[in-house]
């Protein structure tokens, strides 16, 4: 199994606590990779929260191609931060030549437009960059969004962290929301795009489990939006479903649970909203998950959500103290960074609930 961990904190934190959680859960993954999405940034990007941040790993040729494309699209470079990567060969990491974290100013004609229009252009640009670099084999584009930074790498998570200096408490990157996954590579060729968390248009999602309806999900999703692409991991389907439900359909996020794990028919029939639930079940029958899965996601408004499948219940636990809410695959991960919390307050999300954590760290449990 993979191991996942997420932090939602009142105060900015470095990736260190995430790494500590992963170290505590180390027996649960195989050290084949590490990926992390940081949101609500602080540190070096604190002054550039309003403009999109491009996260990618590439070759020099890939960077040149990216610069040409960004210039052609009218984006202007605002800020560029390059991590210092330890070149030591003793570390188990498959380095890319360049790690790019750059803020771009919006093109002239987009600056005065509403964000609803700007964001479409950001998604379009991210997809165009991704496809261009994939075609030429010059790199990987992970996210292009304001206040969001993504890092994905293949290797031992401890060595990856060491190479990037993530263990340092004074690491120049900090964030209030961090999601991370350490991989257990089972089904797929090791590719960077297959590493969770996945990001699309403000939605971040990572999961633990196996999507037994992967083929059904993928077959259906690939015609729903050009942004639903890649499918290097079956967990991407959960992100696309979340995006489809909340962004495209505009349904309240609670209905995400109804889509991925519909109620049994006997229960549905007794509900006052049965007609709506039946319609959702029929229209979204190809978006069910029906496997052993736990997903942890972040919405564009900053809320964090946690949901499980209904039969096999891949483990996840949510703990909190006054300044932080933490979700992790195993409670030992939470114990590592919040040893003094009231563990009686820990939440083990049930098969029929959606846990939502808002910006004030208030934890809500929504029964399906």
């Amino acid at each position: 199994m993979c191991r996942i961990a997420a932090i939602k904190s009142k105060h900015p934190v470095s990736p260190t606590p995430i790494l500590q959680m992963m170290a505590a859960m180390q027996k649960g993954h195989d050290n084949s990779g590490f990926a992390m999405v940081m949101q609500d940034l602080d540190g070096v990007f604190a002054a550039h929260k309003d403009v999109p941040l491009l996260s990618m790993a590439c070759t020099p040729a890939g960077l040149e191609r990216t610069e040409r494309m960004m210039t052609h699209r009218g984006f202007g470079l605002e800020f560029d931060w390059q991590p210092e990567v330890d070149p030591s060969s003793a570390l188990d990491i498959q380095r890319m030549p360049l790690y790019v974290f750059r803020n771009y100013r919006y093109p002239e004609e987009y600056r005065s437009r509403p964000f609803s229009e700007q964001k479409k252009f950001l998604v379009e640009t991210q997809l165009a960059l991704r496809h261009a670099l994939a075609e030429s084999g010059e790199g990987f584009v992970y996210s292009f969004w304001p206040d969001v930074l993504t890092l994905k790498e293949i290797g031992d998570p401890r060595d990856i962290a060491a190479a990037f200096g993530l263990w340092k408490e004074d690491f120049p990157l900090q964030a209030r929301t961090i999601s991370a996954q350490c991989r257990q590579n089972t089904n797929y060729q090791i590719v960077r795009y297959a590493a969770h968390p996945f990001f699309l248009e403000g939605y971040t999602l990572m999961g633990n489990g196996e999507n037994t309806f992967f083929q059904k999900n993928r077959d259906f999703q690939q015609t729903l939006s050009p942004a639903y692409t890649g499918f290097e991991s079956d967990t991407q389907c959960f992100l696309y479903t979340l995006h489809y439900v909340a962004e495209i359909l505009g349904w309240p996020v609670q209905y995400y649970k109804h889509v991925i794990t519909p109620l049994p028919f006997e229960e549905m029939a007794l509900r006052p909203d049965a007609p709506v639930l039946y319609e959702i079940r029929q229209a979204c029958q190809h978006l069910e998950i029906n496997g052993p899965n736990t997903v942890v996601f972040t919405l564009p408004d900053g809320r964090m959500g946690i949901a499980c499948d209904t039969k096999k219940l891949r483990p996840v636990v949510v703990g909190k103290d006054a300044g932080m809410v933490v979700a992790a695959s195993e409670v030992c991960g939470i114990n590592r960074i919040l040893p003094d919390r009231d563990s009686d307050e820990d939440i083990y999300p049930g098969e029929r609930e959606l846990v939502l954590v808002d910006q004030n760290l208030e934890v809500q449990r929504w029964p399906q």
Partner: protein
Amino acid sequence: MAAMTDLEVDQQSRQDARARPAGGSSAAHPRHPAIAKSAIPAGKRVPLAPPVYVRDTHATDQLWKIRWNPETCIRCGACVATCTFGALHAQLQRRGQTVSAGTLPNPLDTTEVILAVRQANDLAHACRGCGMCEKVCPTASIRPVANAHNRFAVVARRGGSPIKRGGRAHLIPGRVLDSIKVGRISQMTDPSLDAARHTFDLLTPLGRSIPADKLPLKVENGKLIPAGRMPPVRWIYPILIGDMSIGALSWRMWEALALATAYLNEECGLPVRMCSGEGGLPVKLLTSKNLQYMIIQIASGHFGWNRIIKAMPKMVTDPAAILIKIGQGAKPGDGGLLPAEKVAPHIQAIRGVPHADLLSPPNHQGLYSIEESVQKMFLSMNAAFQFRVPVAIKVAASSTSVSVFNNLVRDPYHIVGGFFMDGIQGGTGAANEVNLDHSGHPVLGKLRDCYLDAVAMGRQGQIPIFAGGGFGQTGNLAADAFKAICLGASGVFAAKIFLQTAGCVGDEKGRCNSCNTGLCPVGICTQDPALVARLDVDAAAQAIVDYFLATDQELKKLMAPIGNSSLPIGRSDALISMDKAAADRLQIAYAC
């Protein structure tokens, strides 16, 4: 009993041919023409057997030969009495024999008259191989044996009429379904489910699905609430009882199916739906709450619809659906056929027809395009029930299936509630043999094509596809249904398997297949009260219920290993095929 060898049978046959019939016949028994009504007057010389011409048909021309053992036969007459086809008749034969009594050889020619069982030579009374004689024989002295060297196909067209029969196609080698296995087993990372302990959601929608982004819903106080009318949808068990009419079936068999359907719904919690076939429904059922379990069929003959329309004001519930039959897998391009032999008075009453051959036209009159079909048939049917009842269409699988399906999916009115596709292995109560064996299209390939076409458009599931035609042919309906569902079917319909559970002995190797004759030996496909009495309605219904209950468990036994509790519609990655060509055609993995 000592079984007779072929040689013994031939010798017997020659002896029989030489034997002199002990009875003449002036007026034949209607079903047993060889049985004389009057004995030959005493003192009259017994005439010689009539001459045999090579042009005459003979028992050896038939598909089945009767093997009868005179040594063990006790001459009870049960076989002759039970044969509905008049294929057997009892005959007195005088047989010469040489006997010697005493201690020294003293051979004497004597004769004795024995009662023999003979197979009719004329094709009108040909043996159908149904085996009823064997079933009723108390000493196991008689049975039909398939005649490999028959000449049936070349003699049965005498008189200038095509050969007709019921049943399924006969000439199809191997079943692709049997080359497919459930090969993707959940282990370790995705544990299997427990078929007995876990709950399964084995329901499928019958009715048009609106794409999620077009659902008439609005958000109020964080809740989705209906903001418009949605097409009617029934969530039903994914295996339906296919369309067989009263008329094609005896009233008892049809009643057994309807009883089983109601019982499965009311007592077993399985929302199985049954299609009426094109032949109407009893008024009592039309006006009862059990109508909700029935899918009413309308076909080109509109048989029974006079009564259905008249019953509408008295209906206490809506039917499950309306199924517009355009074509049938067993005889695509041909209309329905109910021979006059089966148009008994009660059939005339239900259908509102005189006693005659009932031929449904091959096409619906006045429909010249798919668009017209949508506009006329669907709208009228929808309007008749005020858009509360899903209206589906049934077509025969064909090279053109995808075009038809595609047109229906793109129908802007969202009015087609289901696409039933019937393959070449579908059964029929009566059809020309040339159609049964030589026309039609297998359903699996077209099911897959239609589903993948919908996938390419992002419209899978919007019109649920129900596949039929040979499902359950080997007795394993759950396996067939499961595989079809993984290939993209929302459900399957089966028919003949339920008749077989009730006692039908017909098969695809020529056994019986006499549904068209009105002489069904088990009372299933006949309207002759004496024959219908052979069928016990309750026992037949019980057998069908039992079969469904077993099938339900077997379906779960297939879903559990792939780790799914909801129907894996379109989950073809769960399947492998051990036939490379089939795997390639169906776009599933080949495995060896």
